């Protein structure tokens, strides 16, 4: 006698891809704006990016209802923090908060695959990558979502530091400029759009640096 399974799921996958790249004094966070369900498109113009704190931006793909709820919870918690500490949360602090919030629902998770980007307390770019239940790590770059399997290997090829074990020793990768990073993001999304049906329409690119926050859009293939 096989176990009976639910004929209804509380989750849905709205697709989409997210990327973040950290630089020496900037951070680029990007996500496409397509929201799908099954083989259908719900809208071509939905933002997956949330500006949680002054120097901290989160991009999330997965089930957008859970993403929205998660954004609201973090936003409310950030307000409380500001009341108590009289300052904005730093990106590493928000990173820990996000992890704790996700694990809080360990047994009914937020179906949200997140990538957090911003500037740390020294002004350097930082990117944190998560799974659905809060396991996280600080990295130099990351991608999540339906296109991540296509995007991540390409980012590894372009951005990964050479191993210190190599002989002859190879130089550390020359630091990426902000313009190069943005260009890389555009390239990466254009490529992912080609083969991932859930990625397309537009890519929203957010750049965080000492001068503040800057947002731009780029059109992608709509098929």
């Amino acid at each position, binding site marked *: 006698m096989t176990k009976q399974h639910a004929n209804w799921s509380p989750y849905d996958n709205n697709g989409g891809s997210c990327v973040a790249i950290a630089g020496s004094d900037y951070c680029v966070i990007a996500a496409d704006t397509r929201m799908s369900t099954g083989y259908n498109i719900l809208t071509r113009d939905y933002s997956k990016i949330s500006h949680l704190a002054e120097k901290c931006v989160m991009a999330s793909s997965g089930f957008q209802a859970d993403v929205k709820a998660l954004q*609201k919870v973090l936003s*409310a918690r950030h*307000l*409380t923090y500001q*009341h108590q500490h009289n300052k904005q949360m730093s990106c590493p602090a928000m990173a820990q908060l996000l992890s704790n919030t996700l694990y809080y629902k360990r047994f009914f998770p937020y179906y949200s695959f997140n990538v957090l980007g911003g500037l740390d307390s020294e002004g350097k770019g930082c990117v944190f990558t998560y799974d659905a239940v809060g396991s996280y790590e600080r990295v130099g770059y990351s991608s999540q979502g339906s296109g991540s399997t296509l995007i991540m290997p390409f980012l590894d090829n372009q951005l990964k530091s050479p191993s210190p074990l190599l002989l002859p020793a190879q130089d550390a990768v020359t630091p990426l400029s902000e313009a190069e990073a943005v260009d890389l993001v555009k390239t990466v999304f254009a490529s992912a759009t080609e083969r991932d049906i859930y990625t397309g329409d537009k890519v929203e690119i957010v750049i965080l640096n000492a001068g503040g926050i800057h947002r731009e859009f780029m059109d992608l293939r709509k098929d």
Partner: protein
Amino acid sequence: MFRNQYDTDVTTWSPAGRLFQVEYAMEAVKQGSAAIGLRSKTHVVLACVNKANSELSSHQKKIFKVDDHIGVAIAGLTADGRVLSRYMRSECINYNYTYESPLPVGRLVVQLADKAQVCTQRSWKRPYGVGLLVAGLDESGAHLYYNCPSGNYFEYQAFAIGSRSQAAKTYLERKFNNFTASSREDLIKDALIATRESLQGEKLRSSVCTIAVVGVGEPFHILDQETVQQLIDTFEIVREEETAPAEPEAAAEQDAATDQASGADQGGAGNQGGADQGGSPMDI
């Protein structure tokens, strides 16, 4: 008020129908240092006197931001005030989370009043010993409320609570008719003058007072010390200029003010003359 046999519990009525513990709580508000609030059609200003216990300590925080559109000034037991501010902040955050819109001030003060009332009807609790001046903006405009330890709340055009608040209230009573149409700058100036009245003789400096503003298009925020000192200097300077051309009005008020000790206050009357002329250059 004197001790009597009906004042031990908050749950005991006196034969005259009074709850003495509640009245004693309102006394605690009168003992705290002054807090003042005034509102125009579009702005609300809160001001308070900040007296440190000694030169060595910092002064207590008496003005709290509750949300972008609401702020509160307290007088009395500041610890109770802090706790109530935390409650107010929490209510605003929860409302915003559910309705994605700001909590209307009127609702918040009712919730606060109901919370205070509970403490007047439980034998294991005591009333909050703090009076709150709640300043906020909502769709119907700018509002200023006063919440009592008794659980009552009132809306005001202008009000002052705490010790020596009567001096500030007297000033506000003279001027309040003009407040609705006041500009932001004039409103802040009136708040500073009312604060000075509460100081009664002591020189008004930005280190002894705190000013906060909320208005249409302007989230609630506390003005920093430098700005406040500049504002004080601006109208103190004007006051010195105005005492020379003595107006009959100013002369009459100076007679009334002769018993005030410090020189800083003698010009207070002259400033009324200046303010009535409308010639104060308030550039912030």
